[in-house]
């Protein structure tokens, strides 16, 4: 069964480019403009890996991850941020399901490695 990757980012350029890139490697992709949109969809349970922007309008990526964890629906997450220097966000993003935190712009290998790792991810104890 083809793994499903969900991309949540408010920036259309990021959404569209990641959708195309991931689809080009043969994975299924769903894109969402906000955390709320993702939660309202039926996807959370079907998602094998989440690619989340740290800063989102409304609920942030970090909060979305926390909420999934709190409701025992944790999924492997790859965070992305445009603020390369934002160490605080990196710290906040860290969790049992956090696979990686990529700084935009990132190379395709960086992303695909992280996705591959995520698909095999077992949450740390």
């Amino acid at each position: 069964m083809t793994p499903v990757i969900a991309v949540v980012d408010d920036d259309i350029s990021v959404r569209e480019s990641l959708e195309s890139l991931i689809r080009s490697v043969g994975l299924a992709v769903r894109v969402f403009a906000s955390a709320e949109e993702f939660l309202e969809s039926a996807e959370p349970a079907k998602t094998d890996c989440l690619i989340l922007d740290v800063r989102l309008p409304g609920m942030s990526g970090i909060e979305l991850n926390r909420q999934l964890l709190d409701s025992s629906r944790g999924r492997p997450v790859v965070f992305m941020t445009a603020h390369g220097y934002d160490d605080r966000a990196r710290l906040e993003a860290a969790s049992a399901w956090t696979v990686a935190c990529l700084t935009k712009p990132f190379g395709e290998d960086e992303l695909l490695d992280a996705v591959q790792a995520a698909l095999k991810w077992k949450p740390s104890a």
Partner: protein
Amino acid sequence: MTGRAKSMLAAISEWIRRSPHVFRNRVPFGGASIGARLTACFVVILLSMMAADLVTVWQFRRITAEARRLVRADETSLSVVRIHFDVETFRDKLAAVTTTHDIRQFRMEAASLRQKFVEDVAQSQQLLRASDVPGRDPAIASGLETLRTTLPSQLDTTIELASAGDWPAVDLRLRNQVQALIELTALLVEKVDRDVSQERAQAVESGNQAHQQLVLVLPVAALLTLLVAVALGWYATRSITDPLSELEAGAQALAQGDFQHQVTIRGHDELAQLGQVFNHTARQLAALYETLRRNEALFRLTIDTIPAYVWSALPDGSVDFINQRWLEFSGMNSNQTFGWGWEAAVHPEDRDGFLEAWRAAVASGKGMEAEARVRSADGQYRWLLIRNVPLRDETGKIVKWYGTSTDIEDRKRTEQTLRQSEAYLAEGQRLAHTGSWAFDLPSNRYIYASEECLRIFEIDAIQDWPTREAISRLIHPEDWDRVNRSFEKSVRGEMTESEFRVLLPSGTVKHIQVTRHPVLNDAGDVARLVGTVIDVTERKRAEEERERLRQLEADLRHVNRVSVMGELAASVAHEVNQPLSGVVSNGSACLRWLAGDVPNVEEARETARRIVRDGKRAGEIIARIRAMATKSAATRQEELDLNGTIREVLALAGDEAKKRSVVIQTQFADDLSPVSGDRVQLQQVVLNLVMNAIEAMSSVDGRARELVITTRNIDAGQVQATVRDSGTGLDPNAIDKAFDPFYTTKSGGMGMGLSISRSIVQAHGGRLWATAHDGPGTMFHFALPKHHDRPTTKV
């Protein structure tokens, strides 16, 4: 006879004179009933009348007898005269017949004469025998007897002679023999006449005597009868009126309250029985009165002892009794209190009102209840609850008023304290904008709302307590569901809290915060909700204002940050990294779509198109940042009130100014014309100038740290703002250099503030400059074109 009458009258008058004394001591025949006594009196009167009548009749009989005697005497006399005439007639008639010698006629006449003669003699003899008068001449009777025997024999002889025809003998005989008889009868007549006249005289005298006696006896008998009747009537009257007047006196004594009075009982008649009944009644009354008096004393004691003030008043409202307890309370005596005297004890402030109420009650006949302060013996006024009720007779007329009053001073004090507490609570609620309320579930109505609660909902006065639905209708439609759910939770027993908007009938929108606390009944069910309501409109507005200022501050900080090189770079990185990230990923994807065994040209083309798009976007971002960094872009153009713009900055800088003991004054032109521009950028300019001024005064001591901001219309096309400080001032030669980039006099500054500010002002078509102050400090001015009057802005 007169003497006897006189002595009788004297005896009677003496008896009458003494009789009152007799009757005073006793009633004769008092043992008999009044009826019997009256009957006896009537009988005696009748008897006395009959006795008088008998005497009268007797006297009449005497007179009658004498009259009859007279008649008899006359009759005797007449009968003897008749005999005389008979004899004469005998002689004359026979003599006449003798001449005729008619023997038949002679015999006939003789027979007739003889019969008449015999009859007359017999009548005379009878009359004489009937009127046997003592001393009568006996010759009369014998003469008559002689006549009776002689005449018939003579007649017989004469008849014989006539029959024999011896008429001369007859004639002779008639003249001799009969003549002797005539003389005898004449003698008899004389004798009888004499006898009769004597008897007549006696009868007349006796009749006269009887007549005289009758004249005396009749009035005496009448008088006596009258006297007896009067005496008996008087006796009968006295025997009734005396006991009656004694009873009347007794009744009057009873009426005057002398229940010990007893009437004297005499005899056994009806009045005596009445007297006994009266005495018994009086004794009974005395006993009753005593009981009553004792009861009254007990009642009075009760009235005086019960813990209330009790009085009674006449129908006109004047007090006629008041109990001892009141007198002790008020220190007044009964006389001071009676009538309307009590009103002096009523507090002057309450007096008119109370009197009016009391008079109204008396006039209308309806009971009254009032509260008034009344002075006690120690001069202190105490609150009394006063009640008056009327007592009516069976016709409904008021006969008395009864009243009580109870000391309610303690209750009043408690009430006052309570009222004060309520007032404090209401004031507290008013100050805290917090009202309280209670809602009753069974009736589905609010049953209590504090003053503040009513004020929040803009309700002047409650006529009917509103239902839940009535209040729900005020809730903002967008909030209704949420509030309703919360309310239902409380109905199920949870304590809840909601914050929502209400739309009041006046059109006002208020933000209110409500807490609801369920109250259980004995059965453990929720019976009521009690809670608070807080008007948070002001707080909400303040929050919104704070939020706006926070946003403003954030905007300014953002601008500030952007203006600082390092932060500018960060911002540039973030803005550019987004499309850059798209470019990279799209590039990778494009390569991958083309690298497949069968290149997916369509996908590749699409990704390549996006690469171009994202690249352009990144370029635009760079250009915009560059434009800002090179201060050449007036990003927004809007109509601005420069005064308001400056005020918002002062709200931000106020804390800093206070911290540094700087007093900020504003001298704004009220008619300042609006300008066009970017609010945030212009505020950055003002903030820069203000912060510079504050910092410039940080080393000032010994004089006021004063910051004055002035605005004015300088000409038809421009407005000007001036920021003046009382700081150390700038070297006049250095004034122009102050606007160069990286020029700074501050240890921590970058020297970019004034440079950027000038760029911004110039971008708005205005200018920024500084002048030295007459006194200490510096003045920075900037002028901006008025709205619509500005030159076309470069993009």
